[in-house]
């Protein structure tokens, strides 16, 4: 008896994890792709956590006001662009450190979102629609696991597009050059500062869209504990993914699955250590960071202009 139920339990646990990964990974995906663009240009934007929260608030608010969740997504992206421009502009001033500015903007973004978002905690805004990939199945569990948001396939396609663009488009090559050796870029006549500001703004746009997913799809409301550090984890994820957009997408799914571990176990009736399992993404972040840093070596694939690769 116990063997068959164990098999079943394992199957549905795997299914719950898959469903969780597909549901939870979208913000990780967008923020990490955004950060990937920014870091390829040679700057680190730690403020994406703030951008994510501000995007969530802005997207929710605009969706509530206009009744269109897609306008909300757009507004969230524009919030992100503004935050990105602020970061990019500040970092272009002489002797300004991008990491310090990032931390300041993280606090600024979340603070501003909490301040402006107070009236948004109660009302219910229109949500983004979902796509039923599991419609073929009779099993409710499979259907719920494969119920995804359009933003997920968009994000995955974007990862593929970025992977191609970094390698084989004028903009991608110029971006990588600026991030790899700014002096060389300047000598060749590429505008270093505008490219970096543009990359940071584009990164902000994606992070903002990731925020809209949080408030307009899953969990699907605006409150102050919405992000719980996902923006920061996504930044760490870029390092683990070695600045490769495809690996960013894989890592985002992995983080999504880790984030779904607690709820999935709970749905199987395992309640012991619920909060411990909820900490899985954070533990995963620490473990991956420790595994991907080797002392005394520069990281393979790291853009040469990043402040932590400079010796």
């Amino acid at each position, binding site marked *: 008896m116990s063997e068959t139920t164990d098999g079943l339990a394992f199957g549905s646990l795997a299914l719950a994890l898959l469903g969780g990964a597909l549901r939870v990974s979208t913000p990780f995906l967008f923020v990490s792709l955004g950060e990937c663009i920014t870091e390829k240009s040679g700057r680190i934007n730690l403020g994406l956590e703030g951008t994510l929260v501000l995007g969530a608030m802005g997207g929710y608010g605009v969706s509530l006001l206009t009744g269109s969740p897609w306008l909300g997504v757009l507004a969230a992206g524009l919030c992100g662009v503004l935050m990105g421009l602020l970061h990019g502009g500040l970092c272009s001033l002489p002797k300004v450190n991008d990491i310090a500015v990032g931390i300041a903007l993280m606090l600024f973004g979340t603070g501003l979102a909490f301040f402006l978002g107070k009236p948004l905690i109660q009302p219910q805004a229109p949500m983004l629609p979902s796509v039923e990939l599991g419609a073929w199945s009779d099993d409710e569990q499979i259907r719920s696991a494969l119920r995804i948001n359009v933003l997920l396939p968009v994000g995955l396609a974007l990862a593929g597009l970025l992977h191609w663009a970094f390698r084989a488009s*004028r*903009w991608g090559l*110029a971006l*990588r*050059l600026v991030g790899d050796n700014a002096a060389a870029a300047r000598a060749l*006549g590429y505008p270093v500062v505008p490219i970096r500001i543009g990359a940071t703004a584009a990164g902000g746009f994606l992070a903002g869209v990731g925020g809209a997913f949080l408030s307009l799809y899953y969990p699907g409301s605006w409150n102050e504990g919405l992000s719980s550090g996902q923006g920061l984890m996504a930044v760490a994820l870029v390092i683990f993914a070695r600045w490769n957009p495809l690996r960013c997408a894989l890592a985002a799914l992995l983080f999504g699955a880790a984030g779904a571990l607690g709820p999935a176990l709970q749905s199987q009736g395992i309640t012991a250590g619920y909060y411990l399992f909820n900490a899985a993404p954070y533990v995963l972040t620490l473990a991956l960071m420790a595994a991907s840093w080797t002392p005394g070596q520069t990281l393979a694939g790291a853009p040469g202009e990043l402040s932590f690769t400079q010796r």
Partner: protein
Amino acid sequence: MDALTHTLLAADVQDRGAAVEAYRVTKRFGALTALDEVSLKVEAGSFHCLLGENGAGKSTLVKCLVGYHPPEEGSFLVDGREQAIRSPRDAQRLRIGMVYQHFTLAPGMTVAENLLLARGDLPLRIDWRREKAALAAFLASTPFRLDLNARVADLAAGEKQKLEILKQLYLGQRLLILDEPTSVLTPAEADEVLGLLHGMTRDGRLTVMMITHKFREVSAYGDSVTVLRRGKLAGSGKVGELTTQDMAEMMVGSAVFVATAPRRRAADPERKTGEIRLAVDRLCADNDRGMPAVRELDLVVRAGEIVGIAGVAGNGQKELIEVLLGQRSARGGALRVDGETYGATRAELRRHGVFSLPEEPLRNACVPTMSVAENMGLRDFDIAPFSGGWLSLRFLRRGALTRRAKEWIEAFGVRPPDPSAAIENLSGGNVQRAVLARELSGAVRLLIVANPVFGLDFAATEAIHRRLDQARNDGAAILLVSEDLDELLELSDRILVMSEGRIAHQVLAGYVDVAEIGRHMAGGAGHGTGH
């Protein structure tokens, strides 16, 4: 004749080397006048050499010419017409290209990507198959061989230099400016590169302007020469009409002795060397990417000798030096100094009298933002007489540090003579002098030296060589790693050739066969670090 050849020929007819003139060019950086009304004339299709000591303004002048630092006053004439060169784009439009002293390649990108990015008119979407074929065809038209798919970070220094030059040739430049192009090349590589460029000037296709310190290169390849001193024009002329002595006088402003190759006398085989000071036993170390760079290397340095290590850059010399200086941990093997296990700790360095002149001293031997006096005190600021005092709390005695710094600045000729100046604001040669003062003024028993004269003018070079020779005669054991074979031949008692992380060849100074050394250097040259 097919269409392609036809276009190429047509392009050749158009592509004559550019004639360039600078007229009373002045460039200031704050209070410093780096260039003071300098004029120069470079004829079309000539090989022009720009000579001068460190800080003479050579680099500033060419950076003005390529639009990197637009000058405050003066003008440039290209093919007789005045041209405003305000940005690198302007220079690119005039087809003036520069090969910088410090590499301007993107290390994380491939050879092909670096070449393509240099072109500047990239299509929005890049068809890599077509571009790679075109690049391969271009490469085949030059004598250089590089792997298009190799990451630049994996190339040896010599290969990077070739890529820099290839980049400019790829752009079809009419004037090529080279800033000390051979400082990282082996003599054979240098002759190959300069010979090729010289050939292109003979065809009239290219004008070359080369900054150099090496008179040998001026006499072998130059047509005409311009000499700068302290930001001013010191003289110019045709190479055939000027002697080395004339040029040296223009450079330093007075007649000085120029070492025109009296190489070190053959070492006396009977010469007494002392006890073993440094013993390296089966040392293994990895490079930054975790690949083996030093492989089971053995060597011994005795008191009273200079052991020179020759080799093409990237064959493990850098990693060896870093292990000896404590900047990198070894993966295997043992180091012994005076017979005791050595781990490059501060206490061991002090006990055994180990000193060092690493390459890039600003990065490897200094704290850039600290003052000259503080940097000169880095070895001994924490012991008497520079610290001490009340309750033996080891307070720093700044007065004592500054007084000593003043003595050393005087003795070693550091400019500006200001102990409180941040060392990062000094020129390369003066940083080197300041470090030299710190490292050679103590009781030196073992000295580890890497490329000590990289980028220095000949007066500074002579001074450093004299001091190394003196230290050896005083009984120090010296390990000298250099990419300049002439320097090794001049100084060393024994020469070891390092290739692929091992000692490939060993020879006493009196029995050197340069061709033999070259063969052993080349043994691992092309693929020294890739695997």
